[in-house]
């Protein structure tokens, strides 16, 4: 089926263009970042699917633009193990023959593989949307290809490319050593508990997520993943701020972490890691009680930047799905809080011409993407 992009949006970027496309789906269906590093070198950070067609959205986006995915996608990064960042990633990997696959993991790799394998065995009997299937499928592909998994951790150079005058470095900024050890302990405890009634991962994953810095000829972009701020300085953003050695230059584009949630915010991130005229991009989320981003957080972001863009609104419908009238009536009698989370696809495409003397990000809003202005408050 593919994505319905117009001719202009389908055009491939020029060799000298550094391009970041943030794909969002509204509600809680996921996000992905598709990045052109110049000279047909692409990377993909996370994956999501269209819940109706089950198509892998970053893959469809690349195909719609006639990218030779088998050859030109150099890196696929799985930032963390949440459904809204991982759905479709095995299909993406299966089609990107040359791509390096990177993710964070605990240090006891055997235990980690046992953990995934056991959970996968349970899921085979009880189909669900669990992310375990995706991870297990990726392992199978990498085994067949005889390709290593690039472990992401603090201050790790994941990819370096040199094309003509272009030098690209991609660093992972997290998770910290402390969090990797914590992951070891968590897996060991899960084995001890042998509790099959909870979907894994049961512990919050956001402190284990991989934030990255992309640097193309000195132009930096910070992708915040879902990394949160913790009171423990050994994890999350404080650890990045205090300990990362690779953050030498301020970023001009920032993917705001964790859908603009308060727990992903710290003024030090904005003051120490980002330039004054930074462009902020984010995706919405809604799966629990509160839709993200909240109004108060939007106001905070707008105090830091006037350039703030979101892939769509939160996509919350005021009613349940459309069904037979009689069925809807009975649902409403038993529970009148049922609300559909609409699939609202949007792309914020940001382009920087590296050869310009004073490069500035150009923003293109596709489908439901929009700019957030001070008076708008989403």
């Amino acid at each position, binding site marked *: 089926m593919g994505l319905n992009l117009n001719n202009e949006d389908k055009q491939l970027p020029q060799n000298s263009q550094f391009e970041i496309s943030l794909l969002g789906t509204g509600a809680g269906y996921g996000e992905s970042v598709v990045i052109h590093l110049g000279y047909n070198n692409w990377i993909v950070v996370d994956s999501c699917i269209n819940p109706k067609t089950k198509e892998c959205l970053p893959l469809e986006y690349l195909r719609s633009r006639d990218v030779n995915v088998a050859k030109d996608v150099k890196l696929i990064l799985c930032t963390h193990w949440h459904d809204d960042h991982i759905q479709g990633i095995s299909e993406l990997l299966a089609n990107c023959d040359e791509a390096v696959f990177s993710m964070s993991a605990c240090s006891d790799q055997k235990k980690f*593989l046992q953990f995934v394998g056991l959970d996968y065995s349970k899921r085979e009997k009880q189909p669900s949307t669990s992310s375990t299937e995706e991870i297990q499928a990726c392992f199978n592909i990498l085994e067949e290809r005889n390709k290593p998994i690039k472990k992401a951790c603090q201050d790790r150079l994941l990819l370096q490319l040199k094309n003509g005058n272009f030098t690209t470095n991609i660093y992972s900024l997290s998770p910290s050593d402390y969090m990797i050890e914590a992951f070891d302990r968590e897996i060991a405890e899960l084995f001890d508990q042998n509790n099959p009634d909870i979907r894994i991962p049961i512990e919050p994953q956001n402190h284990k997520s991989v934030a990255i810095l992309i640097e193309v000829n000195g132009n930096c972009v910070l992708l915040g993943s879902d990394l949160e701020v913790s009171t423990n300085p050994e994890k999350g953003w404080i650890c990045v701020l205090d300990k990362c050695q690779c953050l030498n230059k301020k970023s001009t584009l920032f993917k705001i972490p964790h859908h603009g949630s308060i727990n992903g915010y710290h003024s030090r991130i904005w003051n120490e890691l980002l330039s004054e005229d930074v462009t902020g991009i984010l995706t919405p989320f809604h799966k629990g009680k509160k839709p993200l981003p909240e109004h108060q957080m939007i106001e905070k972001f707008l105090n830091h930047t006037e350039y703030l863009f979101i892939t769509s609104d939160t996509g919350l419908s005021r009613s349940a799905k459309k069904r037979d009238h009689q069925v809807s009536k009975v649902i409403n009698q038993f529970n009148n809080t049922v609300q559909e989370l609409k699939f609202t696809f949007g792309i914020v495409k940001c382009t920087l011409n590296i050869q310009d003397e004073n490069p500035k990000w150009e923003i293109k809003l596709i489908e439901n993407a929009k700019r957030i202005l001070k008076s708008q408050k989403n």
Partner: protein
Amino acid sequence: METNIRLDYDKISKINDLGNIVNQYISGVIKERNISIEKNNSIDIITDDNKAEFDLTWLQKIDSKKDVYEYMSNIQSWTGYVSDIEEDNFTAKLIDKKDPTTYEIATFSKEDVSDGDLNLLKPGAVFYWSIGYATNKGQRIKQSLIRFRRSGNISVQVFDQAMDRAEELNQNLTWD
């Protein structure tokens, strides 16, 4: 007298009415006993070969009250994933079993959950929500049923297979 029977859940489920009766028996047994199901309890365990095990003595008890447990026809069912829990209620993501495309969310009162299931109510827990019509003494009544998933422990064979596969992957996969 043999006090345990094994039913082929797949086959029975294919026969609609009988499948519904069995479903009602299962949920009835759970309510009747009003306890949390402990590990290795023989009720409501779906085993690796997809068989359901019941304690026959409880079925006999239910049978004596069968006017209470007649069949229920589902008109709508979801798989739910608990996302937030508050003092009196909880919020969940719902996936429509017939149309597993877009999600829904809903808030439920804890009173909707049977006492025996309350200890399973945790963030990330999986439950099944069905609404439909039940027949009681010939009267048709609307019914809503929430049942939390209990997973039987995987068999030694499946466990060993998973461990073997993990060992194989550990040998073949490299981490850079």
